[in-house]
């Protein structure tokens, strides 16, 4: 059975809507700036990739704004785009339409604001719990559209969105659903969350005066990731059904693989990353030498980018040097559970446009990062098979393979 992508939606620091996002990505636009949503002066990392000018009132009534966290609002906006892009899903029984969303933190904006009120002895909003719960984004998408099938939420930190896409593939293959809304959403440009990542020395702190240069995967002098936010949503269907209902198709979701390092709660491990990529290629029946492009996990941490480079070299051997690789996070920062869903959209756009977006801020590469990362300028290339990587805390490694139809 072939599973295809028939709709896409994205909310990101460099654009809302696939066209705006992709246009910015191809042009190497940075969405990183000083934090605007709260006073970050007491943080060491004062910058982020925020979704600016996001107005939930443009698509939600005041009542539903009260009942939803920002991450759910991102997810709903991206889902609205994707469902519309797919031409609606009325073709299917509502009980056969599933939703699988990923989020690393869930409704943490609500958590932080309600916790602050509680510690100040003030009452807290009544929808605090339903806004915080990680499955609220998936539940709201289902409620908005009446999708009554399986409704799941993956929370595997930075790989959440990739796991959600993979589980969507499994639901279609196993016959548990006929169409699946998959993706990821995150909104954790927040004081406590950022302080928490700071405490792990995971965030960039050396580029507060030059925010757009801070996220620099594979570059010499990189010093951590930049917090981001956003959402990416895809519509998955069986190719036979999609063609039967006359839908346009963007790419085939050919395979999915995951592996747990089982070594350390936060440190990356090459073996797990290799195993995930290998499993995804095997699942897709694709040989390593057929891969043209990797949308790398590449968060701009000193260790992570080197380990991913080693994993790619280990698995692809001499073909590694022929691959095009790029890091979407160089432009949008790290949107945790949304990042792989946005990366997957970039990977699909690569197949559609035969253009590879650049890794920006890569003027001088780290000597230990010696592959072709598409430095600073987009390149045109014949591309038929792409891999999207996502590696998360918990030692969770996920790879997804998309191919041209």
């Amino acid at each position, binding site marked *: 059975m072939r599973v295809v992508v028939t709709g896409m939606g994205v909310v990101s620091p460099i654009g809302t809507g696939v066209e705006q996002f992709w246009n910015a990505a191809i042009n190497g636009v940075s969405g990183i700036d000083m934090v605007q949503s709260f006073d970050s002066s007491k943080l060491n990392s004062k910058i982020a990739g925020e979704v600016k000018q996001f107005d939930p009132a443009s698509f939600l009534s*005041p009542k539903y704004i009260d009942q939803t966290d920002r991450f759910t609002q991102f997810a709903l906006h991206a889902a609205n785009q994707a469902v519309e892009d797919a031409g609606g899903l009325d073709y299917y029984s509502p009980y056969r339409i599933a939703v699988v969303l990923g989020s690393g933190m869930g409704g943490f904006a609500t958590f932080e604001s309600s916790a602050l009120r509680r510690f100040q002895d003030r009452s807290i909003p*009544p*929808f605090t719990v339903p806004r915080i719960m990680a499955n609220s984004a998936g539940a709201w998408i289902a409620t908005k559209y009446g999708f009554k099938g399986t409704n799941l939420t993956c929370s595997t930190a930075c790989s959440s969105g990739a796991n959600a896409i993979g589980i969507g593939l499994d639901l279609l293959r196993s016959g548990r659903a006929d169409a699946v809304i998959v993706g990821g959403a995150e909104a954790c440009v927040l004081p406590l969350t950022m302080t928490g990542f700071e405490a792990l020395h995971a965030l960039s702190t050396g580029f507060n005066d030059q925010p757009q240069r801070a996220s620099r995967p594979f570059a010499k002098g990189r010093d951590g990731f930049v917090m981001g936010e956003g959402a990416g949503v895809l519509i998955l269907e069986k190719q036979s059904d999609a063609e039967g209902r006359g839908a346009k198709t963007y790419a085939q979701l050919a395979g999915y693989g995951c592996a747990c390092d089982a070594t350390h709660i936060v440190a990356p491990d090459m073996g797990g990353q290799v195993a995930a990529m290998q499993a995804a290629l095997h699942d897709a029946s694709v040989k390593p030498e057929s891969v043209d492009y990797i949308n790398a996990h590449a968060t701009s941490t000193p260790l992570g980018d080197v380990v991913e480079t080693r994993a790619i070299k280990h698995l692809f051997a001499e073909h590694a040097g022929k691959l095009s690789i790029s890091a979407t996070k160089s432009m949008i920062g790290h949107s945790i559970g949304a990042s792989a869903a946005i990366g997957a959209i970039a990977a699909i756009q690569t197949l559609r446009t035969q253009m590879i977006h650049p890794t920006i801020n890569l003027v001088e590469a780290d000597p230990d990062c010696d592959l072709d990362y598409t430095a600073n300028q987009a390149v045109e290339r014949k591309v038929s098979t792409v891999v999207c990587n996502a590696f998360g805390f918990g030692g969770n490694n996920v790879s997804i393979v998309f191919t041209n139809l």
Partner: protein
Amino acid sequence: MDTTNLEAQVLEFISAKVENIDASGITTASQFAELGFDSMDTIQLLFDAEEKFGISFDGDEVKNFRNVGDIIEYIKNHPAASS
């Protein structure tokens, strides 16, 4: 808080919260259920009223609130609840 024109202030506040209802027909006797607020919506509405009017409803008394006038009466009768 300034209770001058309290009734008008509360009616204006409620009018901004209703959806698919003709706000001009809202009176102090309007019940929350008639205005489209289910029980959870009403809890949210009362929370928003606390924020808007700088008051704190007593947990037991608020359970008996049924209409717009109940909010107004409470604020009038509990000046100490205002901050």
